[in-house]
């Protein structure tokens, strides 16, 4: 009984990390490259690749239970420098996603509230999440589980209602001609829908969690997310919402449930932004704090508020980055480009995780491992190459808009890397 409860909680944490309102923007964006059923197929293919990544991450997590994710895995597999650079790229990508989340929320709220309130709400939510973290208020696992279940049920209900109960809408924009290149681009961009499912790995409560619960929770989360977004893609086309811009989920909800649907979609949007901002800021601030304690970031990033033990230095840095990203995305209307670049970074990061799994198998074969990914090493290498190619595809889908942003993120990460006080530190040989 306790095992099943733990599994559901881990699954909800994993899925909850990935559930974000900007996913609907990306889902609608896929229709620029392929038609309705192909969008669902692209989502399922990306999900299938993520299943392989989840299995590989589960093997890495069973080698280093409770370790802080990519920083440890990459450090052990590729050394300190490569790990640090990849971790900084990932952190800047998270700030970018927070920016996109804020902007999409503002657009959704503007459908039902005055423009000033809609524009202010993302900033207010960000400030609220930061204040909660400084005050030491954290959502319990039970609350996280309930909110995630509520969001998943809500999205499934809206999608299924639109498909089953309402006749197809007329006058939807014509779908683009199907091509292999278009499908490849759609698969590459669809990676955005799964961003963050692996963030559950540092949260195991015991070593035993890494044998079954966490591996199955990640796999289950990817399956649930894939099914949910594939269904919703079909609902977007069925309801003729492919031109709905920033809020296709609101358009589908209105199509399926009328005015009540709008309220439901807006409520789900606020909940999704709040939980994804909270999970993202919490996870990223702990990673920044750990990097500062490791002397890879300035010492002020490890400053604490003693009354609650909150890492205020790290929270300030992450909050400032998220706010700057929100401002940039709003001013330059970069939401789709930012999501595409985030998808590319995630794709490359997941490729690196597959590579790390294969390298660690060769460098440090573990005699007793809690979980072993069933993919052979050659499959991991092939998967890594495929994911890096998909990352490049996402950037090259619109090189004029995506490439400068991708270069800017890598340049920022490189600057942070060059400024890192302890970047030259070598991985401790004894830990290999």
């Amino acid at each position, binding site marked *: 009984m306790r095992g099943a409860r733990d599994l559901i909680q881990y699954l909800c944490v994993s899925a909850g990390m990935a559930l974000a309102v900007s996913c609907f923007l990306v889902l609608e964006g896929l229709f620029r490259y392929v038609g309705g059923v192909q969008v669902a197929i692209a989502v399922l293919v990306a999900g299938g690749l993520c299943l392989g990544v989840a299995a590989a991450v589960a093997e890495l997590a069973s080698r280093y239970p*409770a370790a802080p994710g990519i920083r440890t895995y990459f450090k052990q597999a590729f050394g300190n420098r490569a790990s640090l650079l990849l971790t900084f790229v990932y952190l800047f990508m998270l700030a970018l996603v927070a920016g996109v989340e804020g902007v999409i929320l503002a657009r959704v709220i503007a459908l039902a509230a005055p423009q000033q309130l809609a524009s202010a709400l993302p900033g207010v939510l960000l400030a609220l999440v930061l204040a909660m973290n400084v005050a030491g208020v*954290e959502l319990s696992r039970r609350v996280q589980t309930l909110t995630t279940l509520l969001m998943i049920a809500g999205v499934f209900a809206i999608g299924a209602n639109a498909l089953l109960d309402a006749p197809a809408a007329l006058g939807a924009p014509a779908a683009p001609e199907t091509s292999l290149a278009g499908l490849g681009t759609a698969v590459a961009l669809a990676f955005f829908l799964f961003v963050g499912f692996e963030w559950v790995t540092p949260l195991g409560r015991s070593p035993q969690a890494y044998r079954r619960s966490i591996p199955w929770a990640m796999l289950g989360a990817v399956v649930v997310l894939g099914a949910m977004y594939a269904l919703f893609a079909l609902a977007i086309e069925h309801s003729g919402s492919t031109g709905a811009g920033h809020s296709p989920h609101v358009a589908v909800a209105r199509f399926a449930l009328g005015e009540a649907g709008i309220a439901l979609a807006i409520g789900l949007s606020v909940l999704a932004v709040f939980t994804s901002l909270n999970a993202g800021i919490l996870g990223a601030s702990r990673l920044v704090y750990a990097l500062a304690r490791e002397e890879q970031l300035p010492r002020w990033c490890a400053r604490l508020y003693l009354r609650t*033990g909150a*890492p205020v230095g790290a929270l300030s840095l992450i909050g400032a980055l998220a706010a700057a990203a929100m401002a940039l995305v709003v001013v330059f209307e970069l939401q789709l480009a930012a999501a595409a670049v985030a998808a590319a970074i995630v794709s490359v990061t997941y490729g690196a995780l597959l590579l790390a799994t294969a390298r660690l198998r060769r460098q440090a074969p573990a005699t007793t491992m809690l979980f072993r990914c069933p993919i052979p090493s050659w499959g991991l290498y092939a998967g890594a190459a495929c994911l890096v190619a998909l990352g490049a595809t996402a950037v090259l889908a619109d090189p004029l808009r995506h490439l400068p942003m991708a270069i800017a993120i890598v340049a920022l990460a490189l600057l942070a890397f060059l400024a890192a006080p302890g970047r030259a530190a070598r991985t401790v040989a004894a830990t290999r």
Partner: protein
Amino acid sequence: MQAHESNDLHACLERFRDLANANQRVCKLIQGWRPVIVISPTDVAPGEDAPVYAARVDGAIGAWRSSEPDSDWTIRLSAPQEVLRQVFSGELNPARAHLDGSLQVFAEDRDQVKLDAISLILWGV
């Protein structure tokens, strides 16, 4: 595992407790914090039972006992004895050991930061 290593670790944990409880900043940090900290070394010789040290925190860190606690709110640390001894004597930065994968900490994020912060306050490492 040698018996004296076990005794070393226990003595080291007791010194850590005394230092932490005597430090005003640590006391402020752990005010209202009530987990049970469980230390379980991983380097156990075949045929031997793994030793466990557990201390209840409630305004101060309690005495280290060698029994599994009856509590849902636990912070569990696993590592070889030498790593644990170095971490609890201020010789090794716990965050670095955690990032390197040599120290496993099973706890909520906030609890991990608090525990690490005790080391930061006591020894600046």
